[in-house]
């Protein structure tokens, strides 16, 4: 009985914790597949989180909040695309710049508008007839807010777009061999603009999932570095949406287990130093990364700006 509750609560916890990572990592997957590394995800998440929060704070309209996050995220993605594609700036540095920008601006705006963390009414948990009332399974899968489902729904959609559409083929080609794509009449810049902008939108949604769905509050540095984990998860997932989701779930599950460590200790009569428990998600992630990865999808042109030979 107690273990059932434990399992259910850990699994449900993991699904919730994974949600912002899934949004952000999927978005980053698109960008990286086309050859652009955006390290500014965390900054975009923060501004997206604030935009969504502020929209809901002022209007109470949740859809408006989602829209605000999406637009803000896409605008920042567009900025990143401009810097990395058009200006061909060093992607790592500009990403960090974008992060600091998002961190600072979200904090500033928050202080100028809302001032203190004030809870809002975010997305409620859905109650599905029959499903939500299922024992154990109901708690794990059918008692989350809407954005959780949106995040998970985006996984197959992203995989489909990448693998089964002409646009996805262009993305993969541009990330692997931009010269070849160019020679085939594909605009490398256009594809990269689209993926990075889209990735920005996803990062904005990741922020919204925190501020108006899971936590229903905003605070300075609300994401506390989740955007960076999201970037790592893209490598972890070897640039494949399903693997990225697997990585996010694995990382979140170990994190959720870590929160239950006391309960587990009591049940098993052992004592785990909490530092170990906290390191666990990272350790597990790194170890899996070492063993599981088959890196054939690695975009070889990642971080490399493209310029046709002609000067």
């Amino acid at each position, binding site marked *: 009985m107690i273990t059932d509750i434990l399992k259910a609560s850990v699994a449900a916890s993991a699904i919730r914790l994974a949600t912002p990572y899934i949004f952000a990592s999927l978005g980053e997957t698109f960008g990286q597949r086309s050859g652009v590394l955006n390290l500014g995800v965390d900054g975009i998440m923060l501004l997206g989180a604030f935009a969504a929060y502020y929209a809901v704070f002022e209007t109470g309209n949740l859809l408006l909040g989602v829209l605000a996050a999406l637009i803000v995220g896409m605008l920042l993605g567009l900025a990143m695309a401009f810097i990395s594609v058009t200006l061909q700036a060093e992607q790592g540095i*500009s990403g960090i710049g974008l992060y600091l920008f998002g961190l600072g601006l979200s904090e500033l705006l928050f202080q100028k508008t809302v001032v203190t*963390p004030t809870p809002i009414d975010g997305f409620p948990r859905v109650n599905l007839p029959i499903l939500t009332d299922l024992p154990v399974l109901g708690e794990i899968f059918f008692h989350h807010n809407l954005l959780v489902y949106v995040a998970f729904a985006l996984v197959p959609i992203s995989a489909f777009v990448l693998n089964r559409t002409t646009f996805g083929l262009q993305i993969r080609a541009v990330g692997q061999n931009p010269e070849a794509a160019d020679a085939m009449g594909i605009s490398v810049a256009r594809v990269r603009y689209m993926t990075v902008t889209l990735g920005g939108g996803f990062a904005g949604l990741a922020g919204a999932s925190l501020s108006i769905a899971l*936590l229903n509050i905003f605070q300075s*540095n609300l994401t506390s570095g989740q955007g960076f984990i999201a970037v790592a998860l893209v490598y972890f997932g070897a640039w494949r949406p399903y693997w990225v989701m697997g990585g996010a779930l694995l990382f979140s599950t170990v994190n959720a287990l870590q929160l239950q460590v006391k309960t587990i200790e009591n049940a098993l009569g052992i004592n785990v130093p909490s530092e170990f428990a906290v390191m666990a998600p990272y350790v597990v992630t790194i170890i899996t990364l070492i063993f599981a990865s088959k890196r054939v999808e690695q975009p070889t042109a990642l971080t490399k700006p493209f310029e046709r030979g002609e000067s």
Partner: protein
Amino acid sequence: MLSRKKWLLLPLILLMVALVVPMQGHTRSAKAQDTFKVAVVMPSASNDLAFSQSMIDALTAIDEEMGDGFEFVFQENTFVVDDAAIALREWAASGEYSLIIAHGSQYGAILEELAPEFPDVSFAWGTDVDTFGYDNVYAYEAGSDQGGFVNGVLAALLTNSNVIGVVGPIEVGDAKLYVDGFKAGVAWVNPEIAVNVNYIQSFSDVALASEAAQAHIANGADVMTGSAQMVVGAVGVAKETGNVLWFGQQSNQTELAPEIVVANQVYHWEVVLKEIIAQVQAGTLGGTSYKLTLENGGLVIEYNEAYALSAFDKFVADAVIQGIIDGTITYTLE
């Protein structure tokens, strides 16, 4: 080639703008002759409803009291210690400030270095007791266990499930003191009650704090508390669940969830600060270490007026506060 380099400047400028924005200095109060000027660095946001805000609230209170004779500047979000070092050194070198406060135990090493370099400048830092033997350094700390004990007693009286959840950051400093005091308070009423403590090893991860609260609730907790700025996530969860009570710590967290917050232990650093200011004005630049207690009024249990606390429970709590102050109630921490 050259034009490429020029373009590179753009992200760099962006970066610099970004660096400047969050750590912007703030000045509150108008300038006047002969004012007592204070400068302070703090690790998190000045509105974090926790550690940093407790200092800002104190300075604002003093400002209101002293009016033109007082002025303060602060730099928030200075979680990078090196950035704090730059600000502190600048302030010390400017000779403009009568007192420079490093609000965060991580800044100790900087003060240890700065204090002998600027012997005419008075420094204060916390939370800690160490003045490094310098006579221009004050140290301050909070006896957080006291309010923790009171909160613990109330929590024990209010729980029905006999399971209480605590969300902590890292097991150090005043967070640890508070949690240990809280546990002692619960045990003082009923040692059978289970207090599940979860240190999430982060001061900032709101999402993890919120899941920690979910876990506590799943394990049957109906009363919770926590320390540090990431607990807003936990309060949110408690509020959403509806029937889980919350005890605040460091700042008054009532406004986060008026329906479920019972009481808060609030830090009033102004009690200590006023003493320090008086000392500095009298010419003593440091050498003493201070502590907030229930007795000196630095720690105050602020009840949530909106919560219908029974007369009996309130009576017990007040009696416990009095008992701690006059020494009739003593307890040992783990």
